[in-house]
């Protein structure tokens, strides 16, 4: 009964979010300088007459009032029809599907690495408060938190791809090889540098958060009592520290999907990595409205799912929240 209520509440929240998002993005696009007809015709602009353009506009319903336009677009979206991408000349949903798979590998690797290393760095810093290692980690994290992803990507590219030649300069696969001949290892090889860029930046948040949480826990009454009971050192941090900081860290890491996605847009652009981020940039620059709106919706669902998963994990694992829900 309570779980049903919970699921229903979350679903309602998601639907209202998506409706609001559709409305806002539609208004923004409608008021943007993008002319969908021009974007559709592209370079053939000179060869298409004014009358033909008007015919296209009429065919698309661009002469109708905006509200009507919105409902016809939203109606199509509800039926799963996101339209056709003008750049790729393929259904939007297919473009997003392919791109998302590539991005998912990139973001997944970056997410796992930044989560693990950030958490460990936070614990090491928190345990050695005020010492050299703590100051070094803090300095590193604060510097990184202030570092733009694209800049870090460029630096890594210059050092590891150009100077040292260890990694390819860009792209998701080697140049001049048919896609069916590309091996997994080659794909991974192209993935390393962009994934590294993303995870290096992602470490800062989780490390600083974990450090602070651990400091709070170490100053808590229950750690004082654990010490009074003879616990100390690593055992104490493992028993009481990790237990109490793991949950917020996991929640934070799931809530960081938005930053992850934002970072991947920049990293993919720098590394010409054919993921969703790069598609977003091209869709924006070249006025591919259907693709842009599709990506906005899909990325919103992606970020929402991240938060939702964090929430669910918290409520399943944390006995206090579990109790709270079952007693409500």
């Amino acid at each position, binding site marked *: 009964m309570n779980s049903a209520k919970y699921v229903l509440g979350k679903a309602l929240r998601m639907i209202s979010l998506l409706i609001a998002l559709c409305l806002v993005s539609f208004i923004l696009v409608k008021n943007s300088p993008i002319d969908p007809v021009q974007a559709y015709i592209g370079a053939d602009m000179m060869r298409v007459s004014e009358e033909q353009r008007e015919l296209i506009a009429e065919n698309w319903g661009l002469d109708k009032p905006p509200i009507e336009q919105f409902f016809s677009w939203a109606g199509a979206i509800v039926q799963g029809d996101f339209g056709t991408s003008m750049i790729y000349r393929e259904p939007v949903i297919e473009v997003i599907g392919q791109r998302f798979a590539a991005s998912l590998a990139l973001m997944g690797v970056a997410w796992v690495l930044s989560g693990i290393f950030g958490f460990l760095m936070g614990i090491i810093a928190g345990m050695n408060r005020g010492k050299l290692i703590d100051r070094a980690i803090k300095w590193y994290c604060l510097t990184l938190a202030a570092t733009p992803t694209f800049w870090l990507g460029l630096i890594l590219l210059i050092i590891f791809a150009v100077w040292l030649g260890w990694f390819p300069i860009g792209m998701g696969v080697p140049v001049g090889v048919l896609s069916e001949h590309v091996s997994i290892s080659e794909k991974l090889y192209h993935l390393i540098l962009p994934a590294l860029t993303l995870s290096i930046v992602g470490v800062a948040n989780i490390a600083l958060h974990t450090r602070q949480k651990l400091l709070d826990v170490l100053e*808590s*009454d*229950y750690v*004082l*009592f*654990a*010490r*009074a*009971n*003879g*616990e*100390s050192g690593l055992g104490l941090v493992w*028993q*009481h520290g990790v*237990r*109490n900081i793991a*949950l917020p860290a996991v929640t934070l890491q799931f809530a960081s999907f938005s930053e992850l996605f934002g970072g991947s847009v920049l990293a993919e652009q720098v590394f010409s990595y054919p993921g969703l981020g790069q598609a977003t940039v091209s869709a924006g620059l070249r006025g591919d409205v259907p693709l842009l709106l599709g990506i906005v919706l899909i990325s919103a669902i992606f970020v929402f799912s991240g938060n939702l998963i964090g929430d669910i994990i918290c409520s399943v694992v*944390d*006995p*206090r929240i579990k*109790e709270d829900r079952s007693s409500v």
Partner: protein
Amino acid sequence: MNIKNNISNLQHSNLSEQSQYLSGTSRNDLLVVENLSVSFIQYQSGMKQRNLEVICDLNVNVRSGEVVAIVGSSGSGKSLLAHAILGILPSNAKVSGTMIYNGQALTGERQKAIRGSEISLIPQSVNYLDPLMKVGEQVQNTIKTKDAKVRQQQIFQRYQLSKAAGILYPFQLSGGMARRVLVATAVSGGAKLIIADEPTPGLHPEVVAETLSHLKELADQGCGVLMITHDIEAAMKIADRIAVFYAGTTVEVAPIEDFTNTGEALRHPYTKALWKALPENDFTPIPGFQPTPADLPSGCLFEPRCQLRTAACGAGKPEMAELRGGQVRCIHAT
């Protein structure tokens, strides 16, 4: 054999030295605290530092089988005494003075080795339990032997805690259950000295009575119990001796029998005033308030509020002196 002899000789000579050095203590003292001071370095505006002395020249001793209560008003730093004995003060605290446990100096290393086993703490509230760990597991954590689980269940049984209580989280415990779990945690390591820090804060009278009876029972079984509290009535129910804590130090240690009638058997003016201020006695307060650690009087700490004060009182801190089977820190005490 030889080595053994040497060691016992050594211990013996140590002991006699200590009993010479320490006043008013006897062989069967489990814990002796002499001239204990705890201070913190505090940063003031700018780069100025000052030493904030929260406990100064505190004396107290606990024998096996007795309950000694340290009574003082809330927020006067009594808990720090417990933390100092256990060696769990924050790292910016400075401790001086002598602490002797079971005839040997209680050094940092020794504290580390025996806290949780020989010396244990009963904390104030359920907040001292890890919120995300089942209470049974927490009790098992303090038992160092292999049969921790069995021992934990035995101890739970002894304190009328069901098996099912072991798999509860701290937030699921009722007030009375929480008290019993805290006591169970403290005794699970087989402690000889138990320090109860404010064990009856704002509890239901029945729970207070139960908690006190647990402490008394532990003393009857041969443990030394040091109970730190602001609740003089609770202390009177079970304590053998009461040490009165004022402005960071003990002003008097008196046997429980002295707390009767109008308190004429009591030694220190503050103890007498405290006694008379109780609702069931005169209910008469004295003016003024306890000085904070930041601005302590230079002489006797009670001098500004004392009716017996003379010029000599402001001249220097009085030493702890033996008087009529108790100890007192007052030059006018008779």
